[in-house]
């Protein structure tokens, strides 16, 4: 049997949202936190030496490689084959910690030292994130 469908028009349509025309894209954390996406990478802090300026073990660090380095910046550097997060003292060529328990480290010519980038943001995860828990240990 062939049936020709005819749609019933019972007028329950509701009301169009008065805000429909004002709808915009949602807020993006990337847009807020990352100014130079091509030159930025995300790392994870490990250790207590930067707690004085609010970087705790397990925090995410957003590192921008494109910025000009200024004295006193919080940086990520390659120090003898290891990524470290410290405050740069350009005047005395030292890496400073933000903790009483860690003394400054002098950068000597024998050291392998390169600035990787500047820490522009740090993010604390007050609830554990399942994606990250594997590396919190």
């Amino acid at each position, binding site marked *: 049997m062939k049936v020709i469908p005819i749609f019933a028009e019972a007028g329950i349509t509701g009301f169009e949202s008065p805000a429909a025309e004002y709808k915009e894209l949602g807020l993006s954390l990337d847009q807020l936190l990352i100014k130079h996406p091509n030159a930025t990478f995300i790392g994870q*802090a*490990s250790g207590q030496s930067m707690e004085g300026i609010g970087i705790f073990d397990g925090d*995410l660090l957003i590192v921008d*490689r494109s910025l000009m380095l200024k004295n006193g910046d919080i940086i990520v550097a390659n120090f003898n084959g290891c990524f470290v997060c410290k405050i740069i003292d350009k005047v005395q060529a030292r890496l400073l910690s933000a903790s009483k328990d860690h003394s400054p480290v002098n950068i000597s010519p024998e050291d392998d030292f390169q600035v990787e980038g500047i820490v522009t943001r740090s993010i604390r995860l007050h609830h554990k994130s399942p994606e990250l828990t594997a590396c919190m240990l």
Partner: protein
Amino acid sequence: MYALVDAVSFYASAEKVFDPSIRNKPVVVLTNNDGCICAVCPIARKLGIPKFESYFKIKWLLQKHGVVVRSSNYELYADLSERMMNVISRYCDDQHIYSIDESFLLFKNYGDLIKDWHQYGHEIRRAIWKETKLPVGVGFGTTSTLAKAANHAAKKLPGYNGVAVIDSNKSAHAILQQMSVSDVWGIGRKISKRLNSQGIKNAFQLSTLSPKAVRKEFSVATERTVNELNGIKCISWDEVREPKQQIFSTRSFGQKVVDKYVLQTALVKHGSIVSKKVRQQSSLVKKLLIFASTSSYDTNYYKQSIIYQFPVATDNSCDISSAISSVLNEIFVKGVLFHLCGVGAIELESRHFQQSDLFMTDNSNPALMKCFDKINNRYGQGTLKMGSEGQSEVWQMRREFLSPQFTSNWKDIPKIKC
């Protein structure tokens, strides 16, 4: 003015970006299934580590020099390549990405603003190094072939330090004279052999040949190369971008395959890769080649390949996977240790100029495939796949020395000591 920017042993350099402990060490990267060396960093090159050598053969040499060995980490390379290309794009008004680590630049309007190409080249190099930690070579030339030659000089010839410029007959002569014909872009192995036998050894000699005679003896393409070496523009972007005539996906297995359904999942996976690439260039598959074989070192060598012809050309992954499944029984033989398999679209048609068939309907369902690709692009490849691709990929390639996915997987992000 044209430029060609490309990374110095890209895969090996990419491995060093997020692993500072190997920055000053010799590093090599292995191909699929860790079979062969495909990238050698400059430090390893100085030690005499050869490229394209079988890993197994020179394992002892690598161990002797303490060379760091890595499997190909495509997830990392793709991300770093994209960053590098984006940084490069700031420096020109037209960019053509030629391969994962090579990009042509064209300076149309703001070429006049650049006073010193050498200095500009170094500026590009510095920016890419600062922002991505990838070392690159930059070559400028008045044609794309000359830019490619200058790039060769920038990286390989002494005294250029990563940047070379061909903007006059003098600078062209200096570089082309030191380049063998086989290193010229567009000159293949066969043609360079024939040129060598005629006494044409270097690129400068090639440039002095009569283009007409070259066309007669070789081809129009070779004639164009000669003209380009003389600063006459013959290659346009569109030609470089021309859609591929054939698309293959093929790989050897991580371990030998004896199960029919494992072979099927592998073939269907290759089929999906091919159909995705076919869609990307707006083509349709008319003929599909499906093959599998044992290792050529095996005593009982076996190879079977089937050509499947579609009644109506298609780019639909479902059509392609059912075509593969329909010929599986002709390829699979019980007891054979399969080592390699693959799928190739060997006859392609353009979607835009498709002649529709009077009796056959086109079932390729472009809307479905568009949706399929969109979901996979957004949520990661393999989010949606053919049922016959199976769940576990036991035949996956071997990547024993794989580095972490520093930029694409949260659990692999670099650790920073505080």
